[in-house]
């Protein structure tokens, strides 16, 4: 009897507590929604209208393919060739995008490799250097690529070079941090052994540290390559090269069917690179950071 009373009251308390938290959460959410709608001067109905109008836009950009004409030449309406009449240009731009990402990932990884030794607690030779390099890497990865891209488009002119430098900087920042974390989690014994047998800092890093962390570093660099492919497709919006420049043009000039053609190509490229790099990471390097 006694037990039941205690149990009941405990149960009631639990329910009360839960109710209190749930209601306060919902009230907070509502306040947030009202406040944010005020700030950006919109309301829920605008949002719903927007979503329905998105449907219109998507139906406009979808190609008008006809089943019987699907494989006819590029002059016949309704064929794939008609939809992709500009395919050679797209492929050229995609190749440029791919190269931008690859070159930026390579240079970024190499820079990150040099800087990361100075940015890890256990390998940094100097605490002042450690602190300043860390802050620098934080700045590099904190600022979005596209902002660096705007800056370099201004300095270097329109073209892929600005995009490459922007991605390189961002890659250096994020990989530098990831690499230095790998070092901090590495086994200290090989380094100590080298130190004990009279090796200098350089040989400690080269023979003691690098062999044990290299697979991990390569895996991170590949992961970054996947991210950079995505980034390089949009940097063209600000004039920094790649297929984004063409996409920006066709969206702004309302060449509806070309929009879907380019977006589909981008999605296919991104997915196939993801799958390929995921395969390499899992099967060849034996690491999976997902």
């Amino acid at each position: 009897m006694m037990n039941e009373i205690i149990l009941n009251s405990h149960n009631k308390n639990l329910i009360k507590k839960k109710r209190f938290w749930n209601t306060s959460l919902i009230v907070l959410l509502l306040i947030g929604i009202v406040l944010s709608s005020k700030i950006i001067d919109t309301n829920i109905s605008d949002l719903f209208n927007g979503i329905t109008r998105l449907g219109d836009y998507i139906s406009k950009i979808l190609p008008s393919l006809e089943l019987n004409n699907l494989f006819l030449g590029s002059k016949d309406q309704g064929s794939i060739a008609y939809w992709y009449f500009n395919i050679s240009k797209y492929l050229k731009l995609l190749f440029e995008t791919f190269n931008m990402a690859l070159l930026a990932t390579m240079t970024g990884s190499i820079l990150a490799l040099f800087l990361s030794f100075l940015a890890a607690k256990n390998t940094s030779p100097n605490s002042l250097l450690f602190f300043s390099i860390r802050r620098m890497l934080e700045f590099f990865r904190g600022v979005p690529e596209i902002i660096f891209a705007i800056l370099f488009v201004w300095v270097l002119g329109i073209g892929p070079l600005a995009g490459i430098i922007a991605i390189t900087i961002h890659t250096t920042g994020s990989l530098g941090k990831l690499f230095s974390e790998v070092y901090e989690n590495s086994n200290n014994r090989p380094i100590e052994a080298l130190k004990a047998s009279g090796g200098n800092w350089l040989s400690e890093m080269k023979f003691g540290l690098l062999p044990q962390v290299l697979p991990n570093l390569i895996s991170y660099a590949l992961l970054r390559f996947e991210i950079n492919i995505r980034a390089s497709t949009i940097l063209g919006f600000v004039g920094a090269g790649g297929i984004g420049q063409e996409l920006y043009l066709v969206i702004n000039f309302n060449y509806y069917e070309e929009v879907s053609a380019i977006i589909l190509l981008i999605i296919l490229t991104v997915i196939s690179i993801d799958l390929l790099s995921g395969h390499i990471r899992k099967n060849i390097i034996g690491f999976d950071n997902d």
Partner: protein
Amino acid sequence: MTNQEIVMLNPKIFSPLWKRSPIKIVVFLIIFSYLIFSIKYFNISITELINDLNKMKPILISMITWNDFLSWNFNSILVGILQTLAMAFLGTVAASVISVPLGLIASRQVIKINLFRFIIRRFLDFIRGVDILIWALIFVRAFGLGPLSGVLAIFVADTGTLSKLYSEAADNSDNKQIEGLVSSGSTKLSTIRFGLLPQVMPIFISQSLYFFESNSRSAVILGIVGAGGIGLQLSERMKAQYWDQAFFIIIIILIMVAIIDKLSRFLREKLIND
């Protein structure tokens, strides 16, 4: 032991590099030739690059010399920051609301028909494949400039990712509660409500919080294509070459992002511990 003997003992280690690991050399050659190829491909000339980068010096200097600091339009910057946060918040809330049903019907705990799930998942994959900035550009084109386009871009892009994460959380939930409810004769709806939702709700909320955090980063850049927020202020100032104010805004953005990071991490830890 003399050196000779050591070498004799470990002949492999002391053989020349090309014999020890030919793969290393091949990889190195591939990388090297790719670098040469790309320098040709992009027409990069090192001297020109250095010359151009020298042009950056005055920009960098003007970034850190804040002469007329007090006369800057701080009001527009503050409005931009608030707009960015509001965009991220509204977009995340809307995406979370729609992702609960979408995520549930994409999960094998709820719908057992494989084909249906497959279609929904491919649809979500498609949404995820399009970058948030592309969505923003499309919305700006369809509805005009302004933060509403940004909210919708965040909403659409996040629906793709959040629904997938929600459905995975539902897939990984414990089957026992659900089986208990089914065996005691409850309807499908109440099975989901009392068997599945209590398990996955904390995960859903913590993932949404995490997305708010990452959206406050991406909302920053949406303004560059005209979708409102602090990005608009920043890109306008960069185009007008107010480098000092641009740099100031970048610092403000970094501080904002850091604060939201800390706050959201704190809340998520609290949520998981409860």
